[in-house]
């Protein structure tokens, strides 16, 4: 994404040029939205957080507008927004559901590496475990529908699912 940002646009944006700011926003919003979505897993919330991250970054320091820095500032602002929301809205939940690696701003290489680890761990699960994870989490089916497709009871699916996620967690760690 940073490769798309021209230094000249960034400089004009830093001086408050409205057209340049809009251009900067158009070039970057989709990736920031995806970044946020992966963390909140909710479209509406991802939109709100993305919007607030821009608001914070644009109100913030001029150095944010350096072509190489803008996206990092946006991501940091987005993570702060997510944390603030959790603090405000769900004191019990804390940041426990944030990824451990979210404590710092991840770069694209981190993201790819993390995906590979998860994919590899999924491949190492037993066929039953893998099927439950695929149907329930990746395809988003209900427990009842998963049970119907696998010819099991819903209680059995919940047990397999629990064990599968535990096994996956151990694999990933």
């Amino acid at each position: 994404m940073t490769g798309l940002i021209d230094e000249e646009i960034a400089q004009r944006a830093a001086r408050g040029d409205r057209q340049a700011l809009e251009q900067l926003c158009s070039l970057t919003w989709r990736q920031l939205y995806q970044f946020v979505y992966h963390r909140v897993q909710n479209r509406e919330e991802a939109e709100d957080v993305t919007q607030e991250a821009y608001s914070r970054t644009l109100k913030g320091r001029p150095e944010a507008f350096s072509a190489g820095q803008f996206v990092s500032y946006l991501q940091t602002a987005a993570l702060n927004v997510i944390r603030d929301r959790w603090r405000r809205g769900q004191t019990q939940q804390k940041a426990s559901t944030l990824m451990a690696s979210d404590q710092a701003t991840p770069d694209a290489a981190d993201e790819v590496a993390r995906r590979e680890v998860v994919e590899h761990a999924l491949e190492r699960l037993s066929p039953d475990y893998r099927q439950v994870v695929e149907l329930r989490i990746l395809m988003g089916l209900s427990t009842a529908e998963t049970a119907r497709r696998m010819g099991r009871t819903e209680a059995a699916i919940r047990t397999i699912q629990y064990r599968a996620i535990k096994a996956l967690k151990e694999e990933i760690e």
Partner: protein
Amino acid sequence: MKRPDPEKELDAVIDALNEERRPEAPATEEVAGLIRTVRSVKNLKEPAEPSPEFESHLLESVRQQVRQPQRRPRRTWWAAASLAAAVLLLLVVVLPSMTRRDVAMAMVEAIQQVERYHGILEKSWTSAAGETQVIWTQEIWVDGERYAVTMQDGTTTVNNGQQKWQVRPQDQVVALLPVAPDTQRVGLDLKAVGEDAQRYPHRVVGQDTVAGRPAAVLEIIPPGGDPYRVWVDRETSLPVRMVTAWQNALQTTYTYTELEINQPINEAHFAFTVPDGFTVVETDPGQQVNTPTEAAEAVGFVPAIPAEPPARMIAYQDRLVLEYGETTVVERRAEGEFRPATHSALGTAGGGPLEVLEGSLRWRQGDLEITVTGPEAEAVARSIAPDLEMPDPAAGFPQEPAVVVEVDMVVEENNQRQVDGGHSPYLLDPTMVTMSFLGAQGIAGDMDAFTISFSSGTHAVVEVPSGPISRVYVQRLIRQDETGIWTVVGYDPR
């Protein structure tokens, strides 16, 4: 306290994530770890696409922000400190308070505190060319369910709960009006906006000022309807402006240029008085009836009353009105031939055709003609006519035309733009489009004799009773709603 079953807890979290809800907080650190793993797996999926209007909302909020001055020269240290304090306040207090839910919730709470209000309301239109024109200004007094509205020309309409009337100074007349249906009371009804914000999805889309006062811009999205925007005063949390969606190339804005809340209102505004020299004209004001028998006696026919009783029944000389909240049923004796509007879609109800227009259904049932209007029109109509079938917009034509007419989409797109700009409105009527098509082929036709034998809202078949062409097939190719133009795509020779 009993510890929740971790299998069920994890299952509920996965359900919540699948349905894009925020899951409950985990009961134990062990489950929290499992949730992180579930999220890692979910991240293998592509994110859900944002809503189509998201990018434009985002750009708009960026524009709003840029309009505010960012730097001021020659600040002293205390000015810099107060600026920092203001920024801190903005980040810590204002921004969080301006999130979607907080703005809407604050507005709903503020409206609930409103018992009465008095204001000056302005209605204006903005054209696609960006020109704005004030249509009217009115002064409004609202006290609970009672209201009085005075227009610029002095015409005053009052509904005091028992009676509704209109004082028309230019005619020296006081007209008694039907008390129901009375759904359009004032252009920007605070109570109605509050109810919409509670019922429908909404989001904050920007910040603005109205009459120099800062306001948050809230977009309310009624399901199946056009989204509209409400400007919420940051200090009072009350709606002060409403802008509708674009309709027929016009956008309507209602703005309270003045608004006083909960100040005493002179009772004289709601008292029925006839000014000296004025005459009273009674135009069938209607009477409330309480049972189907009373209704039948009052209107002279046997009405069709749904199993769920209406909130109110008002009988007029020739019709019965049933009120279900914002949805209204009007029943009258069927007379003459039933001709659905030519631009309507057609379904079936009561064993015959059903006219389907946006927010309105009309059909014949026995010796009654029934019209249902409002947001719950389909459900209420179905309770009267259980055989009701709505048109299927995906259905296509019942049979393919014998001759296919070639279409130039560039021309059609230009035509649609013309119509959106207020020109060539005949393109919105399938019978007129048919007439124009026949004329272009040198065939004379009698448009009044055309009938529409099929219309799904997107595809329609027009029957032509005489001449070399028996049937014309038209389709909404550019836009598939009531603002979309019809285009001839085929015909059957006779």
